[in-house]
């Protein structure tokens, strides 16, 4: 009997779904590469140079250097999350792509796993498009900052899994706005992104660390870009890996429940 916590029987065929999405992405690459590229500029100018001029430094770090890793972390989150909510929902519900694919040797588990991997890949692509901009402005430190790329895959997979759970239970595409506004937006603001967590009341600090996934991505990203490594990295990493496994498994099983009747 399959439950929501069974290990889903995913096979290598999941790669075919990933490849399908990659082909569509490459066909429209001009539209796809532009946003993260521009986003990097916008953030740097508006917040980094604009607000940064007044703020100056945080804990001895120039403000623009402080927020650069946060901008990358937010991009990791947004890319995977929106790909696996709106993107996957459109493919599932409007295009009926999943129905078409599961009539072939692929199973629904393969399809969803392929979608999750694709979501993570979108995060990697975004970060890869943004890194050169930050490099030119000299606000992140190489080569350590390159570790953001594998982090983008892991963090992307976590947000893909969380997003796919919402997609699996949403009654329609409009209700996906709720997680976007009630979950994503607060994270953008309160995960140690634009001001240090230490400014929050202690109680909220605990809550943020316990339940807001972006906090851990921002923390690791900042260690890589400043750079300022510390053993706490392992704790953040463990948190991310655990949550990633839980939500990826859950999302595949929820999707099976939704689509196989």
């Amino acid at each position: 009997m399959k439950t929501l916590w069974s290990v889903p029987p995913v096979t290598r065929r999941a790669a075919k779904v990933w490849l399908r999405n990659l082909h569509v992405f490459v066909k429209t690459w001009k539209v796809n590469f532009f946003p993260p590229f521009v986003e990097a500029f916008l953030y740097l100018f508006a917040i980094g140079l604009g607000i940064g001029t007044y703020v100056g430094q945080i804990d001895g770090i120039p403000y623009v250097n402080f927020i650069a890793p946060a901008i990358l972390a937010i991009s990791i989150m947004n890319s995977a999350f929106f790909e696996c909510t709106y993107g996957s929902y459109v493919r599932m519900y409007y295009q009926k792509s999943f129905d078409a694919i599961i009539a072939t040797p692929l199973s629904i588990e393969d399809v969803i796993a392929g979608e999750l991997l694709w979501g993570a890949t979108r995060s990697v692509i975004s970060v890869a498009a943004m890194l050169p901009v930050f490099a030119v402005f000299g606000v992140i430190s190489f080569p350590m900052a390159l570790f953001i790329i594998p982090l983008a895959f892991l963090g992307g997979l976590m947000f893909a899994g969380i997003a796919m759970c919402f997609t699996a239970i949403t009654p329609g595409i409009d209700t996906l706005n709720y997680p976007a506004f009630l979950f994503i937006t607060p994270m953008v603001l309160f995960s140690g992104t634009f001001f240090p967590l230490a400014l929050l009341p202690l109680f909220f600090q605990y809550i943020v660390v316990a339940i807001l996934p972006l906090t851990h991505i921002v923390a690791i990203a900042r260690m890589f870009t400043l750079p300022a490594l510390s053993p706490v990295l392992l704790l953040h990493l463990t948190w991310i890996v655990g949550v990633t496994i839980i939500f990826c498994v859950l999302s595949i099983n929820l999707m099976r429940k939704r689509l196989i009747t």
Partner: protein
Amino acid sequence: MNEIIEARNLTKNYNDVVAVDGISFTVRTGEVFGFLGPNGAGKTTTMKMISCLSPRTGGSLTVFGMDPEEHPTVIKAKMGVVPQETNLDPDFSCAGNLTTYARYFDIPAAEAKARADTLLAFVQLEEKRDVLIDKLSGGMKRRLILARALINNPALLILDEPTIGLDPQARHLIWERLKLLQAQGNTIVLTTHYLDEAARLCDRLVIMDKGKILVLGTPADLVKQYVGSEIVEVEMTDEVLACLADLKISYEHAGDMVQIATESARDIVKALLDHCKPKRVITRQATLEDVFLKLTGRTLKE
């Protein structure tokens, strides 16, 4: 192996609703086997169970001698499916749809491209090769779906209302192609609402209603067994009705006409003309439609 699909007491419930209620049938290799029935009869659910897309609630089912729930990957690799709902990939062109689909079957890229070209020609869509799905007419989409279902050279083809909403030209093209596929040794299972389509294509068929199989047989046998060979239709007037009662001829109402099923239309018409003063009389061959309406009733199903 002569039986390609074997169902015994096959049952499917959706929560408390019984969609398929203990049906048994076998589909033989090389035949065209039809499922007829009004909306909600359980045809599509049966197709989904055969194509490993929906687990059964009870009974047994084997496809290629295997259980769809145990060996879906092997079964699906040898099967082509045309779903009722058009689910082509709008992000790709016609050829792109076929080659992308081919990849799901582990067909190498070069081979996939060759097959895509052959199949586009087969369904007469060569000129639309690089056109996006949005730009296709309904008939073209159905033809492309048929081509897509054939990309893995399937031994068994499952078609859920293959010609729904098509104009006569497109329907004829699909019929012709299906006949060709059968001649090449494919087994075809299809559902349809169109009784002329079923009569034309199917070697054997079942008529389903409310999740059960009502009858199974060849189209000709079913017509002979359940209706007779000819139908006389006469305009319904009080005089005619009274007269038919006097003559002890049994009849059925069909709108503003009265239908009399018979082995000899000539005798019935003669009796009508001699005794009943009919306004309008039509004689015709009995068809599958007469069987269908007789078995499933004339009231609207929804």
